[in-house]
């Protein structure tokens, strides 16, 4: 019986899988394999020389690579610390407001809006804010409170540009993250919080002692996804601080940013591929660990 059904299944399996895997092989597997091969070559315009691991050796002594690596880690750190924001807000929305409170729906839908819109549009909006409206707002505050210093466009400041790009990045993912965590909130027991309140526990203690442990799987999921996305951060850097790596040179560049520069501006495709291999190894290591944990439940 089982044999027979397997046999009649064969054509169906072929019909189902062939379209995907033909394209997948052509436009995914082959290019990825090609990228790995290219990382061992010196590939430029009309140039194709095997150089072994020389690209990776060059990478290790490339100042820009390490600066971009450090910047990438800074973005990851901001994203990790900022991750407490969505947890807090999702907690308040789900635990303090009733199920059919319209405010919740409004909050979720407004904060998710940047996620559906082109980065190009978001980039323009934030450039306007940073260049005019935010400095003007700071001046207005200065008229009331005596704050020192001038506040120009923070995207032109070597010290402030990276934090600002990171904040915009955090902002884009905020709605997405609170919606993810919304599902996890179901695993928090409101009675437990009430009991803790009665025992005199403070909000902070409830937050770290009850809410975060109860939804740990979701927090871990958000954290790993956050790492994966942030480790390849590209759009806001290119769109907010331009194509020269940020004010004062390479102050905002990430690894993928440097990689695209190497490929598109200097046509050093082999070197860019080597960088791509490094980025991919980091991302795949983290995501495979996560998927191993999930996969047990998937099949």
């Amino acid at each position, binding site marked *: 019986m089982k044999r027979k059904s397997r046999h009649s299944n064969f054509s169906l399996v072929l019909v189902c*899988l062939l379209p995907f895997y033909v394209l997948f092989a052509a436009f995914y597997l082959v290019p*990825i394999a*090609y990228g790995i091969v290219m990382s061992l070559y010196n590939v430029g315009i009309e140039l194709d020389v095997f150089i072994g691991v020389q690209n990776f050796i060059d990478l290790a002594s490339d100042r820009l690579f390490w600066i971009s690596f450090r910047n990438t880690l800074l973005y990851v750190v901001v994203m990790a610390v900022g991750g407490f924001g969505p947890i807090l807000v999702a907690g308040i929305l789900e635990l*303090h407001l009733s199920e059919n409170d319209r405010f919740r729906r409004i909050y979720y839908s407004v904060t998710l809006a940047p996620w*559906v819109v082109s980065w*190009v549009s978001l980039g323009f909006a934030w450039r306007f804010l940073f260049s005019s409206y935010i400095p003007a707002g700071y001046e207005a505050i200065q008229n009331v409170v005596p704050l020192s210093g001038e506040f120009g466009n923070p995207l032109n400041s070597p010290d402030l540009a990276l934090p600002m790009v990171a904040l915009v990045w955090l902002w884009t993912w905020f709605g997405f993250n609170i919606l*993810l965590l919304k599902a996890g909130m179901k695993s928090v027991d409101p009675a437990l919080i009430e009991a803790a309140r009665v025992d005199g526990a403070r909000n902070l203690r409830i937050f770290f002692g009850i809410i975060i442990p109860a939804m740990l799987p979701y927090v871990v999921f958000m954290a790993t996804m956050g790492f994966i996305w942030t480790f390849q951060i590209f759009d806001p850097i290119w769109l907010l601080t331009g194509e020269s790596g940020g004010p004062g040179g390479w102050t905002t560049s990430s690894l993928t940013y440097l990689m695209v520069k190497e490929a598109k501006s200097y046509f050093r495709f082999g070197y860019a591929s080597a960088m791509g291999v490094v980025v991919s190894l980091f991302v795949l290591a983290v995501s495979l660990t996560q998927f191993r944990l999930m996969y047990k439940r998937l099949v």
Partner: protein
Amino acid sequence: MKRSRILIYGVLGASLLLWIVPFYILGAVSVNADMLARPPEWFPSQPSIVGYEAYFYRSGFGRWVLNSFIYSISITAGSVAISVLAGYAFSRLQFRGKTVLFWLVLIGMMMPAIVYYIPLFITMARLQLVDTYAGMILPLLVNPFSVFLVKQAFDGVPRDFEEAAVVDGASPYQIMFSVMLPLVRPVMITVLLFNFIWSWNNWIWPLFVLSNNSLFNLPIAVWLQSNTFTIIFQNVAAGGVLAAIVPLILYIIALDYFMKGVVLTGLKG
């Protein structure tokens, strides 16, 4: 209790300004709010739609909009069709090598897109597909993430349905298309919508594969335009609004599908 509720509405309501203001400013500058004035204008003192006209009267504009629709619709239709077939196979069919093949999907899903665009670009160059519709569309038809979502959706359908259909003598194709597919309609709509906005918003792949003005989609055209008229902020902002408007309309129409869809992406087994 009542006071804490008011505090929540107040603080969280105020925090929503962080999301509303950037969109508002983009819109305001696009209708000639002067952002260079001191202080910058929140409301245009001399409203005008010159920024939009700069786009409407450009020869390329109609083409870019058309291209955006061509790319988004063909990529969405193609990739969803392909993903439904593959996702169904992974959920319901038994075959050798299933685990390995599915791992390939997972790895593809986790591969940073921007990293693989570089060798992909070289591949497309060797295939002479740079600066063609095919070069733009074909690679984006492969979306491992959609396969994953579809598989998850089919996994959620109880076995009883197809067993009943088998008893009724339905063919495997009838089961797949007439029995199973309607059951996962909400997820399918979400996958369609996500694919549409992802391909609509994609400006990085065109940055690599397209250099011919007449093949651009709206986001990449708007971005490259902004480099040419940097000083006229009104035009830049109008471009930003034009690039955002279709996804925003879709989002507002299908709000629930988007919000549920986000939860789907994080759904675990």
